[in-house]
């Protein structure tokens, strides 16, 4: 029962060159996984010189993330000054105001591309994070194609430059729709799928929900199990998250 996210890290494995999709619902937010990955990507692993994160924020302002990550032991403001953390605030500057509705996302893609190409010269491993795809859909006035185009462009970009892409979406939005194209395509793109759900018995103060991590693995042939599925429960705290197998909580 370790604070650092042992079970989750074990299930995720190496995140470089991977596409990760987080899915959550109204009752249980998966934002804490996003915070965990953000912290992990910014804290320096021994083998690489430096990592960088491009964070596209639709849901919360910088102050929100800054405060949370500080609790986790990572100073976003300092990382931003060191040019390792790039925060693209999409809350206020509505991408589509007055102009053609696709301008916003194209401009956003342009920003991401510029940042990554600037960083690529230093041989960095860049992580692109998008905190709420459903709000991106709202920004695109409901045009699923526009969002999908954006995601495909991003996917191509990151696979060319060896980055990774982390995105969050709300699964329950699409559960009632007849043609959930967006979420299906996103799941197809993703190498790792993380789903946060409440317990079937409802919310409890000891167990905040359960995570299912579906890791497709890197296709290098000699490993037999390509699809690794892990399932565990979690309890979110200010300075970390406890992960444990169902029933093993003392």
């Amino acid at each position, binding site marked *: 029962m370790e604070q*650092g996210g042992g079970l989750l890290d074990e299930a995720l494995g190496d995140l470089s060159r991977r596409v990760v999709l987080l899915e959550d619902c109204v009752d249980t937010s998966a934002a804490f996984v996003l915070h965990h990955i953000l912290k992990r990507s910014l804290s320096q692993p021994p083998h690489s010189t430096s990592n960088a994160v491009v964070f596209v924020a639709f849901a919360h302002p910088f102050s929100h993330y800054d405060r949370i990550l500080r609790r986790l032991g990572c100073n976003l403001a300092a990382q931003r000054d060191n040019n390792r953390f790039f925060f693209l605030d999409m809350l206020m500057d509505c991408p589509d105001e007055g102009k053609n509705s696709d301008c916003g996302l194209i401009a956003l893609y342009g920003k991401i591309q510029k940042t990554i190409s600037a960083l690529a010269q230093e041989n960095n491993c860049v992580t692109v994070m998008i905190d709420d795809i*459903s709000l991106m859909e709202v920004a695109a006035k409901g045009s699923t194609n526009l969002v999908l185009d954006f995601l495909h462009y991003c996917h191509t970009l990151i696979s060319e430059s060896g980055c990774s892409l982390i995105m969050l979406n709300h699964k329950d939005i699409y559960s009632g729709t007849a043609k959930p194209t967006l979420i299906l395509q996103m799941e197809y793109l993703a190498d790792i799928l993380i789903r946060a759900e409440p317990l079937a018995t409802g919310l409890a103060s000891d167990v905040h929900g359960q995570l299912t991590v579906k890791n497709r693995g890197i296709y290098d042939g000699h490993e037999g199990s390509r699809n690794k599925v892990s399932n565990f429960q979690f309890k979110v705290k200010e300075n970390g998250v406890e992960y444990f197998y169902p029933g093993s909580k003392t």
Partner: protein
Amino acid sequence: MRSSTPWGFADFCFEREAKAKRRNQPTDRSGRRIEVPKNRKPVDSVSAAMSATKTRTSSFSRNFLAANSHQIPGLKHGPNGIMFISSGIPDLDKILGGGFSLGSLVMVMEDAEAPHHMLLLRSFMSQGLVHNQPLLYASPSKEPRQFLGTLPSPAVPKDDKSSHRDPDEEKGLRIAWQYKKYFGENQQSFDRDGKHEFCNEFDLRKPLERQFLSGKCIDCVSIQDSPNLITLHDRCATFLSQFSRSDGSISSVGRIAIQSFCAPQCEYTDMEWDMLSFLRSLRAMVRSSNAVAVVTFPPSLLLPSFSIRWQHMADTLLSVKAIPDEDKELEKLLTGYQDMVGLLNVHKVAQNNTQVPVILEATTYSMKLKRRRFMVLECLNQAPIDDSSGSSYGTSGSCSVSSKTGALDF
């Protein structure tokens, strides 16, 4: 790895504080222990010493005590550097851990057939006016200003207070069952003795006095005839620009109340994406200003997937539901069924500046009108089981609140 970073020490401090909190032994700044009644929630305390221990949940946060924290009436410091304003219903404030947090979007799912959301909306608006906070009210009626005449007036604090306390408090003895009911009592009297009232109790049968309505910054918008949301958006933007959070100090706090946002009278109801993008920008605007917006909407009028999108948009999500008049089964199951006017469900509590979700003891509360005047929220209590009806296993088996809410979830 952690100990090698400069944050290692901070983590240690934080853990130590967390431990101190767990032991439930608040101390004041000089280290003396304060005697606190056992089951009282420290969140609602008005006393300065208590708020000092409460706001300093992390070693990073500033000590707000130095800057006199209660200079603006109706504001209260919460954890993680957030501020609370009152919802106008003391019980709801308590449930939400202090009130509505500043900068949050509160959404209330209406019962399509009953006006219970109006009770929440009225209390919210009245409380703001009593605290002298500017208000923007939008409604699908022709004359939104008329609604102001129906706002409730705060109960007279002193003389009424003693009379509205439960009569059996004076008696030396009482039958103590369902102990939880009595836990709050000490707490409440403590709150009232505070220097100023963070939250008033509203007398729903007495209209708000003219003095509160006149000369205040009250903006009313009718959303009935507007073909799109641009007007409403602009009104909200200009209203919120007064409260922008650019500098650290808070001079005033604004409240926005939007009633029945997707009501069919409005011409824009078929523009689902426009409504969503309005909510999105409202949320962003409120987030960056010292204001709270309450939006009520009937979810049954929206497509299911859009209804969930709206719910995701909310920082705090509540729903109200009327209870049927003659539901014999429910009547047998719950005490005080006769006094109940409806049920309030808390789906989500704002998680601004924190990743820890708020897990409530119960998510369903009964709305009651005390003496037909004051709105109170209570946990559902199971009725004592009649000996004659002891045969039914279901009623006797579940005695925890949480298992019951499952049956009553909507």
